[in-house]
């Protein structure tokens, strides 16, 4: 049953994988070919844009699409538990985001072959941004799983951006250390001390946020 839901979500969101993948590959290939800035700068730029754009594209209608197309009635009618519905969407998005970042990372290494002394540095940097993108999507789920339209999803995503901005401001300028746990962007400073601990702690935060998101999703009744 879960497999059926996974299949349906995968099939429904496949165009997003194609779109983000094609766009990432095209822009990576172009920027690495013209090489105006150093490879690591290209990597950071592409990874940063991907970190925001890919989750936004996935989030636009992954939950709100069911509401606006009114297919949520069908979804809630079939005898499946709500956690299956929620996690099928979440897992498909996670796989999609990871695949895109993996492909882009490999392409970066291929195009910068021989120029970067540190082994798999570009790939690892890109992957860290991918993890940050996953965290962004997880936070979005908590805010936007009940949105009824694309506008609502965008609004929820912007709220997360602003929340991250505020937390980042606290963490960096006000030096409130615990605020850094809520800003996965700090993961992207590869080579920083304690990065493994930071990844672990932020993963814990993401798991808590995911649980909250699931409970919010499971409590959708009002809009049916």
């Amino acid at each position, binding site marked *: 049953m879960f497999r059926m839901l996974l299949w349906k979500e995968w099939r429904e969101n496949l*165009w997003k994988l194609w779109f983000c993948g094609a766009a990432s590959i095209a822009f990576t290939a172009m920027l690495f070919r013209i090489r105006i800035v150093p490879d690591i700068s290209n990597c950071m730029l592409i990874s940063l844009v991907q970190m925001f754009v890919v989750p936004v594209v996935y989030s636009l209608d992954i939950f709100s699409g069911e509401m606006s197309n009114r297919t949520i009635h069908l979804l809630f009618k079939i005898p499946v538990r709500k956690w299956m519905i929620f996690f099928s969407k979440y897992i498909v998005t996670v796989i999609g985001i990871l695949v895109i970042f993996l492909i882009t990372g490999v392409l970066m290494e291929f195009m910068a072959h021989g120029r970067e002394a540190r082994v798999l540095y570009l790939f690892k940097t890109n992957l860290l941004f991918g993890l940050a993108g996953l965290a962004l999507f997880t936070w979005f789920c908590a805010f936007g799983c009940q949105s009824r339209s694309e506008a609502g999803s965008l609004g929820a995503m912007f709220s997360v951006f602003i929340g991250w901005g505020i937390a980042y401001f606290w963490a960096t300028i006000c030096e409130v250390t615990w605020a850094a746990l809520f800003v996965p962007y700090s993961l992207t400073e590869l080579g920083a001390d304690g990065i493994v601990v930071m990844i672990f702690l932020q993963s814990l935060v993401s798991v808590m946020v995911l649980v909250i998101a699931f409970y919010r999703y499971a409590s959708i009744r009002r809009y049916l």
Partner: protein
Amino acid sequence: MRVSGIIHQQICQLKWHLLACLGLIMVLPIEEAIVDLRAGDDYLSSAMASLAIMFSPLLAGLIACANVQGDLNEKRYIFWRSKPANVKLLITLKYFIGLVASLLIIACPVIFVILCSIIWNSEGFDRFVPLPILIAIMAYSLCFACNVVVRKTARAWLIGMLIGCFVLVLPFMLPLNLKDFMTDVMLLTFGLYLTIILVVSAAAFLFALYAAQHDWYLKTNLRELLWVGTGLVFILLMLFSSQVANIKVLCEREIDAAGTNELAYLGNRVILNGISYVDIDNNKISLSHVAPDPDTGLVWLAWGESAYGREGYIAQIYPDPRHGGLYKKVGDEVYSLVIYAYCSEEISGLYEKVYLRSYRFAEDPQPRASELDISDCLMDRINRIRIAARLIDNILVVCVDDSCIVVDVADPNELRQIDEKINVLKDVRWHLEYEDRSKTFAVPLVPINDINIEERIRLSIDLIYRFYGSIYESSIVDIHDGKIAFFSASQRDVARFDVTSWDDEKIYCRFSAARPFTILEGMAGAPGRNGRTFVKDQKLYCYEDEQLMVFDVSLDRSIRKLGHFVRMDRNIEDIAVLEDGKLLLCTSWSKRGGIGHHRQRRYLYLLENPE
């Protein structure tokens, strides 16, 4: 229609959206203020407020969409359209009410910062604020028009923003099938951007009026929108790369080298640092040692005398053989010509002797071929001595401070002084000012009769405006078809000056054209006065730090950009134009390879010369 009723309804409809946007735009400035005050500082910084204003176009777009959706969304428009409403009046009122509301919201952080700066007597904005506000007006208009047609908030907002970005970026990018947008089309000024913003805003408003009147509805599909939008961005990037990365790299090779590198011409070959020949075969760079012993080369062979001169003296050498050199080939023998100036160790700046020496490149324990004492050119000055030299066929003109010595180097084993002009370059202004562009000005013509007049003019201009540069190997003067022009680069532009006439003592010049640098070109730092400029074969080469620009100067009163090469992590140290027209670049690259370890790597690039 009751206008006041409509205005009231529109404001009520928008109130929550306006409050939300107000909250969004003020959250960062207020937070910053609170943090500063709690830390005991006054509210000195306006960074967050500037950041909030930077995002004001996004919020203006949101307000526009909310404004239109209130009455024109898919389901509600039937209700509204079935009423006897004056469409144009309604749309006009909606537009201006929303616009005024947006501007009021955007003004809030500005007023906040102004008030704070008055209260705490601190500086206000550190950025240029009006521009984002103007862009916000355009964003509002575009999103308004899109929403009238698309009738879905998120999509209309995305489309409006995309069109706005496209309109802003396109003037940078349009090649219009012409090589140089700047020279061939127009000059980019703030006035142009103001025009674009206002015209686009007005056009969007009129379009919205027309679309509402005729009930236009564009069915959109999210997928198609994303593909189209991304395609547009990709096209923009292609245009961008065609403007700033349009010189083809044929070959890139890492080389072993240390110190600042230079390329020098030796006949039709290029020498790197006086140690290696640089050969091109099938667009591949190969290096071969000049001397049989790989540890030696022209550099070391020429380094006959100790660089630090005789006991009690410090030597200044021109040109430094480690970096380049004046080379002369006679039959199969290659000679290097070097000028040594000796300064007393005891009295700083007092130069006592200047020698011109020639060195033969051979396995010779005594490589010095000849020496000529040209100390007569020294004046009583306590200053760092300026030396320049140029080899024109068999004549070597050496300039020391304000004096010129002409030497016959037909036989490098026997250097012979043939002329001497003392103090001919005194009272000269060594750089061009913007005031020079408005009048004809005169440049002293060096009184050396042993070279033809064109070379005299070239030498005079190079000596005055390029004295500190490598005039032994390049020039800023272009001479062709009997016309003479020279070029000067600054932070703002590249200027062309034509030589209009000359007499026995002076050359008369007049400004003829300037080619300003665009913002895009300046992103890596436009070549300023410190940048290096030279002309060869009716092409002007400007390079500094990470970028190189090639201009076509063959036409009168014209400077047309042909190509642009940028590498933000490379420092271009020297350029050579090969016989077949290709360009050879020598660059360095600094990188921290580990804790405290600073590595330098050097590269040679072979580039295709743009046409």
